[in-house]
């Protein structure tokens, strides 16, 4: 569950019709608008290449958006980038280390952020303990495994104070236990007033941590709501998994989508499909009827309770695939 806490009035982040193109042809961000409140954990969900990292880069002043407006902590990133960067923390998706030991990386980062020596040492020790880095604190960061590097990178960001923390897929490569510890650490910081913007593929994480989530695809926000509302919206639905063999699978799924109309959302991948439905009985009868009519064989048919992942998949695929929701 997301963290419930009183939210303050002034937004920490405001995006208005933000657009960005890297090559002048395709828009990586295409009219993105949303607000993030202070003290909120805001999740950005989307598949690879959806535009999540570009959004993070724009909000952290690393790129200048092609058009639209953006305000971070009431400041303009183009004219007041340095002021903004003084008040944010960023864990980027790709690795970023200095060629030195784990504890050396903590020290250097603390110096870069102007953390006084005593506090720097105290925080370093606390973070090394909290993120269980003691065993390899003397090792060079580049010699660590991917998961260990990720832990160092996330932990290092807590060396300095900040008002907004941007985390670009921070749990990639972490095992289940460490992932939970990291999320709990973030929750703890949020209780102290930190605003968090968090990108992930993992919907359980979003469910555990976020107050609100935005589903991003092709540079656009498809859905933005609290997890409670999203679940309420899709919660009563069921997911049917279908795999067919023999015959013309394309013809079968086209006929099925046409027949179901707005009764279901269908996402097809090869010979298989996921259907998000309200009443599985009606849909099942249509599936068996159309399988006979189109000459395909039903190789797999399964009905299960809808998960947040299904909501995500149906939202992302909804505009491009068959059917509507």
């Amino acid at each position, binding site marked *: 569950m997301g963290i419930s806490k009183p939210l303050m009035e002034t937004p920490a982040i405001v995006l208005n019709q933000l657009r960005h193109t890297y090559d002048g042809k395709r828009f990586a961000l295409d009219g993105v608008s949303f607000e993030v409140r202070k003290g909120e954990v805001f999740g950005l969900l989307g598949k690879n290449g959806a535009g999540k990292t570009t959004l993070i880069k724009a909000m*952290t*002043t*690393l790129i200048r958006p092609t058009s639209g407006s953006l305000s971070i902590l009431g400041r303009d990133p183009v004219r007041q*980038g*340095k002021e903004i*960067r*003084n008040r*944010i923390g*960023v864990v*980027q998706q*790709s*690795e*970023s*280390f*200095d*060629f*030195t030991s784990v504890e*050396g990386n903590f020290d*250097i980062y603390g*110096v*870069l*952020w*102007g*953390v*006084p020596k005593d506090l720097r040492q105290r925080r370093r020790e606390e973070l090394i303990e909290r993120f269980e880095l003691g065993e390899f604190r003397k090792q060079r960061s*580049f010699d660590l495994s991917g998961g260990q590097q990720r832990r160092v990178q996330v932990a290092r960001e807590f060396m300095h104070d900040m008002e907004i923390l*941007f985390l670009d897929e921070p749990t990639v490569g972490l095992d289940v236990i460490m992932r939970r510890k990291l999320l709990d650490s973030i929750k703890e910081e949020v209780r102290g007033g930190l605003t968090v913007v968090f990108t992930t593929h993992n919907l359980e994480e979003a469910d555990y941590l976020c107050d609100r989530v935005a589903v991003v695809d092709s540079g656009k926000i498809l859905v933005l709501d609290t997890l409670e509302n999203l679940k309420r919206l899709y919660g009563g639905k069921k997911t049917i998994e279908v795999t067919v063999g023999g015959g013309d699978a394309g013809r079968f799924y086209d006929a099925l989508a046409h027949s179901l109309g707005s009764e279901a959302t269908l996402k097809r991948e090869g010979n298989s499909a996921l259907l998000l439905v309200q009443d599985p009985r009606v849909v099942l009868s249509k599936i068996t009827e159309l399988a006979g009519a189109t000459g395909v064989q039903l190789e797999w048919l399964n009905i299960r309770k809808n998960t947040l992942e299904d909501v995500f998949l149906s939202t992302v695929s909804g505009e491009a695939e068959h059917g509507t929701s």
Partner: protein
Amino acid sequence: MALPNLLRLMYRNFRVNTDPGSLVILIGLPALYLVFFGFGFSSLGGGGTKGTSYLSFLTPGIMAFQVVMAGTVGGSILWADRRWGMLAQLLVSPFTRLEYLLGIMLTSVLMGIAGAFTMLVVALALLGSVPVGGFGLGIIVVTLILGSILFGSAMLFISALVKSSNAYNSIQVLMIFIVNFASTVFYPDSPSLPLPIQVLFAVNPLTYVADIVRDSYFGLLTVTDAYRLLLLTVEAVVLLYVATRAYMRSDVSMK
């Protein structure tokens, strides 16, 4: 009280680049040149110029050579930071692109000066005394600053353009070799050299750095050195401008 941004960046650059392995290359290698070449070539007889021993002749040359080594440090910092994500990380921290660039340039300059004076100390230990005076030392420092900026800019320019590790290392090694050996660091310019090599000597900025440092070291400064210093200044400013433009336009990350 927290240090200014520039000093924090310089602290980081020094800390990351002064591990034992880097120091062996930066200081140890030139010191070994001084020892082995200095004594080795002295044994051929004939010595250096103006009646000095070859070791004495080589000392200011190796001091000048430190500006090339310092330049490679600057270039390597930028290249590694782009390759390993630290440039992008620093640019979402309280630093501007320009501060980052200045941090690298100042690091290169300080490393150039420190390296050169380390060579002077090594020479003092080997020779027992060195002829350089206070004024000469002042001119040497100015020359080293300009030389470090010049070669630092050249390497920054390459770092801003090259993405492949192999390509970067090859260019760096080739540049060090050509710049070093087609200059007056190890031997004096002479009319007996083949014309192409004489031309290389003449267009190589390290020749000017080495000549000014050598004349300062021996107390033989002339008006020619003033012209050399002027030329070096112009070249350093132009290269710094070109490198800054290339860096400001380059991607912050190679990924």
